[in-house]
């Protein structure tokens, strides 16, 4: 009797679930029975913390977005290449100088700094595809600390920022070949002979993280696309895919897809260092440039099916995985075989003096993963995950047996994918985020300008399953996922660490100093007042305000916005910032605290009198 009741109850439950499914947008929702499990896996209760940081590039927004995994909540935005009024970035003297007059950048590939091939949690490097720059974010305070560039001779810094095993170098490359050095014009019809691509290594100071251009290699006018640095047995090598080995111009969609094969450029950077030491470099626009014609053994080309995109080195460093948009196979090369082919000079030709290795000698496997494979990430159990753009899916395959074992559809048109520490020597497995290019209205409609869709996928089990849809700011290209306990951020700048000579820590030291037409204001920001709360200047004066937020408590930020002067800065606890402007508009202008601070936040205000 009891059993009958149970069976009846279960039957009722299933009926209810099925009825629930009926209300779904057809074909789009997950199967109901999986929903509870997915919800539990992604739910981070109020007050609880996520397990991973997820740093997503912000594409042409120029910024970096931080999400928590598994909740996929957007936690914060790090402004990098574009002014960001929310934190006052690009308004104060220092960040304005760092931006160097540019108001946007195109962030594609963030890279966390590494020690022994593992994330060390020190810095995040990002590239600017548009203005050929690199930036370093310090993960102690999540702030952009350095912008390097525009890098000489680099045009379209897309194949960047991938770091070597101990962050000796950050990779950089030209996506759009140009006549070198910059500033010169050659006829576009002479592209094949007078234009050049460049691959480049940017040096990182191991203590300060300070970046400087290391060296460059003059390359044939191909389009250098994506890169990765070797590790373990392949440490000392750097790889870049390149499309348009046709050296074509015009409508590349057609002209650059005529040959069956393009290349992966493999650079032996240990040999590069030897060649530099032997004095083989020439200076081009202030940078040491090596020409493969005169510096032998620094670079080789691996043939790969046409229009390749991603290249990724396996965690053990033994294999190099290349995939291309127009293929259905992913090609695996063996570093051991590459080294043998190099030694035996097993070449099938050359491009401007760069040897082309024999494809059949260096290839380890061709894997039929699916349509439009792009990028590959790895887990802790010896599996690889390749994104399939055309197919809108992720393929899971086994390293060694080279067999596809699982596939999961994603919505829609996945570009990069990012597994937990999935490009290091010791990936974590567990989570994978599919960075999809199109969301196609899988969310409440927000009009024609649609967000991107990032989907969290559970890769802990045998079968992959999509757990969560997040809609991310434009436009996450690549991302990095790092275990939260590897980062140790500060939330307050300790007073004793503030070395700004213009900092003041007592309201008694607040003052306005006039020197001819220069007015210098030393200001204190503290709950809930500005000191001074009155600034008198004359029209045309050059005004400099040094603001110190003397708070020493988490989240006690203060902002200073000046009405109609297009100025807003936010000063963190213990920080000093400086703004400079010319008081060119006469009148009385209020300034006020823009970052809500306390019960008397509204009262935190002052007046600037411009006579």
């Amino acid at each position: 009797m009891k059993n009958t009741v149970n069976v009846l109850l279960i039957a009722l439950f299933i009926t209810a679930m099925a009825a629930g499914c009926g209300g779904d947008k057809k074909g789009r929702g997950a199967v109901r029975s999986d929903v509870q499990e997915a919800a539990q896996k992604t739910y981070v209760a109020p007050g609880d913390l996520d397990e991973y940081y997820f740093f997503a590039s912000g594409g042409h927004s120029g910024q970096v977005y931080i999400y928590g995994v598994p909740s996929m909540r957007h936690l914060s935005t790090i402004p990098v290449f574009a002014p960001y009024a929310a934190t006052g970035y690009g308004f104060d003297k220092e960040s304005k100088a760092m931006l160097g007059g540019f108001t946007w950048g195109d962030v594609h590939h963030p890279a966390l700094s590494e020690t022994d091939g593992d994330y060390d949690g020190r810095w995040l490097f990002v590239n600017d595809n548009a203005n050929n720059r690199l930036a370093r974010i310090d993960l102690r305070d999540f702030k952009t600390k350095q912008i390097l560039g525009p890098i000489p001779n680099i045009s379209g810094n897309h194949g960047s920022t991938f770091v070597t095993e101990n962050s000796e170098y950050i990779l950089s490359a030209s996506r759009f070949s140009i006549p070198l050095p910059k500033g010169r014009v050659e006829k576009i019809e002479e592209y094949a002979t007078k234009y050049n691509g460049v691959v480049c290594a940017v040096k990182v100071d191991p203590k300060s993280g300070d970046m400087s251009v290391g060296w460059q290699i003059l390359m044939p006018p191909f389009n250098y696309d994506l890169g990765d640095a070797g590790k373990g047995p392949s440490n000392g090598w750097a790889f870049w895919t390149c499309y348009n080995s046709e050296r074509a111009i015009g409508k590349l969609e057609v002209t650059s897809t005529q040959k069956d094969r393009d290349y992966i450029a493999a650079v032996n950077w240990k040999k590069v260092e030897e060649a530099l030491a032997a004095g083989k470099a020439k200076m081009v626009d202030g940078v040491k440039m090596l020409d493969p014609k005169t510096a032998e053994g620094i670079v080789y080309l691996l043939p790969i099916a046409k229009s390749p995109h991603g290249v990724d080195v396996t965690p053990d460093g033994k294999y190099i995985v290349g995939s291309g948009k127009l293929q259905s196979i992913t090609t695996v090369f063996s570093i051991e075989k590459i080294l043998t082919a190099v030694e035996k000079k097993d070449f099938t030709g050359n491009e401007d003096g760069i040897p082309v290795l024999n494809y059949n000698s260096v290839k380890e496997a061709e894997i039929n993963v699916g349509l439009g494979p792009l990028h590959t990430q790895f887990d802790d159990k010896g599996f690889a995950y390749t994104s399939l753009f055309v197919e809108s899916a992720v393929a899971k395959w086994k390293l060694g047996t080279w067999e596809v074992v699982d596939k999961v559809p994603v919505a829609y048109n996945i570009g990069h994918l990012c597994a937990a520490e999935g490009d290091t020597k010791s990936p974590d497995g567990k989570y994978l985020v599919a960075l999809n290019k199109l969301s196609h209205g899988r969310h409440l409609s927000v009009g024609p300008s649609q967000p991107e869709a990032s989907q969290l996928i559970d890769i802990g089990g045998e079968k992959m399953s999509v757990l969560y849809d997040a809609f991310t700011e434009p436009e996450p290209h690549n991302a990095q996922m790092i275990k939260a306990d590897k980062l140790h951020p500060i939330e307050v700048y300790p007073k004793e660490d503030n070395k700004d000579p213009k900092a003041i820590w007592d309201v008694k030291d607040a003052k306005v100093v006039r020197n001819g037409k220069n007015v210098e204001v030393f200001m204190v920001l503290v709950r809930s007042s500005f000191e001074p709360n009155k600034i008198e200047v004359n029209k045309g004066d050059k005004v400099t305000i040094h603001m110190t937020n003397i708070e020493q408590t988490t989240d006690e930020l203060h902002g200073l916005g000046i009405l109609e002067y297009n100025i807003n800065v936010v000063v963190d606890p213990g920080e000093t910032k400086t703004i400079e402007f010319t008081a060119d508009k006469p009148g009385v202008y209020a300034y006020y605290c823009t970052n809500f601070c306390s019960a008397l936040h509204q009262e935190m205000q002052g007046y600037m009198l411009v006579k």
Partner: protein
Amino acid sequence: MQHYIEKANLFFEIPIDMRSRLIIILAAAMLLPSFFTPLWKMTLYSNQFPDGLILNIYTYKLEGRKTPNQDDLKEINSLNHYIGMRPLIDTDFTEFKWIPFVIGGTILLALRVIVLGKMSKLVDLFVMFTYFGIFSLWSFYYKMYIYGHELDPTAAIKVPPFTPPMFGHQTMANFEVYCYPSTGSYFISAMPVLLLAAMWFSRKAWLAGRK
């Protein structure tokens, strides 16, 4: 009456035996932790501060708990300024000058008892130290009273004058305030107990010797 005075005089003459002298050394040692551990601890909890703001009061300084992201004393002062309370700063507390001095003096007096070895000196030490303890407690209470009553009349938020709790819990605006003696005080309060023990042992030894 005469009998009691004579008895008391006799008591004051009792020599301090070896075991009691060791106990007095131990008693004096009880004062040493006060040079590096707090006497009192005040914790203020609120919604925004689930881990509390912690203020430790030493014999010679005030110290808020300091984490990389917060200096609790600075935060308490930042919040108190809204109700017009004077900032808590070391230089406003004369106690921080004389308390360590008196404690040092007490240790010297304890050594004096050990050297001279007479009950009268031990009684002196006990009485003086008890007086010092009670006076210090009153002084602490009075300071709390003053800080809670002499509020700036121009303060943004007007609150009725108050005295923060010295022992136990009190609700103040959005804060739950807990205040209790801390490590240093527990050691200090062991001192008079040990002194009484020394008296008792010395008397017991003396009585035993008379039989």
